[in-house]
């Protein structure tokens, strides 16, 4: 039975490139798929594009391509990535430029566009298409004037088309993470559009791979201390057969661990109803999935079931939601927590006295409650040191920046033994996320695949 091997290249914008290089060199894969886009990544890329129209794609694509294009040429490995972000055409130009620099000829670079739907929202609403929030049905009025990006989650279709056109590298915007991994299977095995169970296995494979190291021993809550060599972690490699059964493994000699226990944590990651995980290509049912140990760093995965794909696609929009200003500094034993709390009171009083317009002020004590919030318990023993982090939410960048300036005077005029002031932190724009469902046909009619060759 025909089978292929696919490697996971990246789990987010900023992930390490080294495991993908190892997989390209020694992983015996025909495809490397990169997921660059978390929900909020498009917001970052949109800001890049506002500053420079040529930008707006994941900038690490330059390094990625410089390292990996030689393998595309030598070994015929195909690279699929949604690193195009808010500007897939710009990313295509960058890849062609790098191919030119490397002296690579005969390379086909495909780009998928049409996921960026911000310019169509108005027309859609005029046609009576609702953009109400998909979870709480809030109407979009509340945020409409503050929308900064709006992108539809596309499925595997356009990526398959690009493969059929002979593309070596495929760059997309907001293509669904797992669909990038499914596309080569549809192309290689000729799976039908309604072959729901096999499509489900393919999406499951993609889902296990799309967060890179999270399936190979990273962020593992079990016996994490027994996982070896995270410094040289291998990213997942799937060996998948025509009938959809697959093994999850990693490149020999790399660090990390592929076991039933590490893989199952990824299986339900960011899943809501395990019997109905909605994707553009199939609705995935995980309740019959079996994971079996199949040797060292090798897990056999079967049993995903699929049902008909939805008639809608998800559109995620980001909208401006104020500014975050923050400051971090610390206090030494003795009475470290009491000193930090005193500093908090001083700053809050000064905020009031200066009449700074903050919508919300929040204080966390690092090492005590910054990650568990109200669930944290007071430390049993007096800690050696306590850091506090104050954060404010406000309407303007300028006001957000004013918080940090209140802190340095505390060194001479506050509680004793202060250290570790991290300096003025740049205010960060807060972005709300808005998800809605729209008929898939109105999105798909605008999707295009273009191939350029150097």
């Amino acid at each position, binding site marked *: 039975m025909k089978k292929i091997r696919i490697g996971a290249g990246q789990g987010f914008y900023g992930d390490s490139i080294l495991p993908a290089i190892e997989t390209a060199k020694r992983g015996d894969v025909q495809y490397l798929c990169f997921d660059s886009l*978390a*929900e*909020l990544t498009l*917001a970052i890329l949109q800001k890049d594009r506002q500053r420079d129209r040529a930008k707006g794609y994941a900038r690490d694509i330059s390094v990625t391509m410089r390292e990996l294009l030689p393998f595309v040429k030598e070994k015929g490995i195909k690279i699929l990535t949604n690193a195009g972000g808010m500007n897939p055409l710009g990313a295509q130009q960058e890849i062609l430029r790098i191919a030119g620099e490397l002296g690579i000829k005969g390379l086909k670079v495909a780009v998928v566009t049409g996921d960026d739907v911000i310019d169509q929202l108005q027309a859609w609403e005029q046609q009576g298409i609702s953009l109400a929030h998909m*979870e709480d049905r809030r109407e979009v009025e509340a945020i409409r004037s503050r929308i900064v990006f709006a992108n539809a989650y596309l499925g595997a279709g356009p990526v398959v088309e690009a493969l059929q056109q002979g593309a070596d590298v495929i760059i997309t915007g907001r293509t669904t993470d797992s669909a990038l991994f499914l596309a080569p299977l549809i192309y290689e095995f000729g799976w039908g559009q309604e072959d729901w169970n096999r499509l489900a296995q393919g999406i499951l494979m993609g889902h296990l791979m799309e967060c890179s190291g*999270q399936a190979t021993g990273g*962020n*593992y*809550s*079990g*016996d994490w201390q027994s996982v070896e060599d995270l410094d040289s972690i291998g990213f997942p490699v799937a060996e998948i057969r025509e009938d959809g059964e697959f093994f999850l493994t990693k490149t020999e000699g790399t660090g990390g661990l592929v076991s039933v*226990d590490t893989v*199952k*944590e*990824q*299986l*339900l*990651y*960011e*899943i*809501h*109803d*395990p*019997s109905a995980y909605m994707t553009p290509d199939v609705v995935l049912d*995980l*309740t*019959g*999935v*079996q*994971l079996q140990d199949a040797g060292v760093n090798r897990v056999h995965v079967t*049993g995903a079931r699929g049902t008909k794909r939805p008639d809608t696609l998800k559109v995620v929009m*980001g909208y401006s*939601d104020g500014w*975050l200003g923050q400051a971090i500094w610390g206090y030494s034993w003795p009475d470290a927590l009491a000193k930090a709390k005193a500093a908090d009171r001083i700053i809050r009083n000064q905020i009031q006295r200066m009449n700074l317009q903050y919508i*919300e002020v*929040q204080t*966390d004590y*690092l090492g005590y409650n*910054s*990650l*568990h*919030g*109200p*669930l944290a318990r007071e430390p049993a023993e007096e800690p050696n040191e306590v850091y506090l*982090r104050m*954060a404010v*939410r406000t309407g303007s960048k300028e006001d957000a920046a004013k918080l940090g300036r209140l802190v340095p005077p505390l060194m001479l005029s506050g509680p004793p033994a202060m250290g570790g002031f991290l300096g003025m932190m740049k205010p960060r724009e*807060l*972005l*709300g*996320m808005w*998800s809605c469902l729209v008929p898939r046909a109105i999105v798909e009619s605008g999707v295009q695949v273009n191939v350029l060759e150097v």
Partner: protein
Amino acid sequence: MALVQLRQVAQARSGDKGNTVNIAVFASDASAYEVLIREVTAERVKAHFDGLVSGEVTRYLVPNLHAMNFVCRGALSGGGSASMRMDNLGKCYAASLMRLEIEAGDSVNLSKS
């Protein structure tokens, strides 16, 4: 009957989507899973996260993996990029849940402890 912390009989991972966090909890074996189904209800999880989760908590069972998936709405004070929280992506919720104390029957294997 022994009172044990969830961390002794389960592993877990959490993640975010918008303002929702899901926490997938995996029992160490079939007998621990029975106890978890009985003890770790959606209501208990909602109460445990008082102050962090403002919306409803739904529990889904995935028996083939000895797993339960808790979907917590209104969990991130607006969601990853809008939240002022330090754990703005909800990655520590699984760890927070592992503090939960449950009544374990005598048959439960506490090998993880």
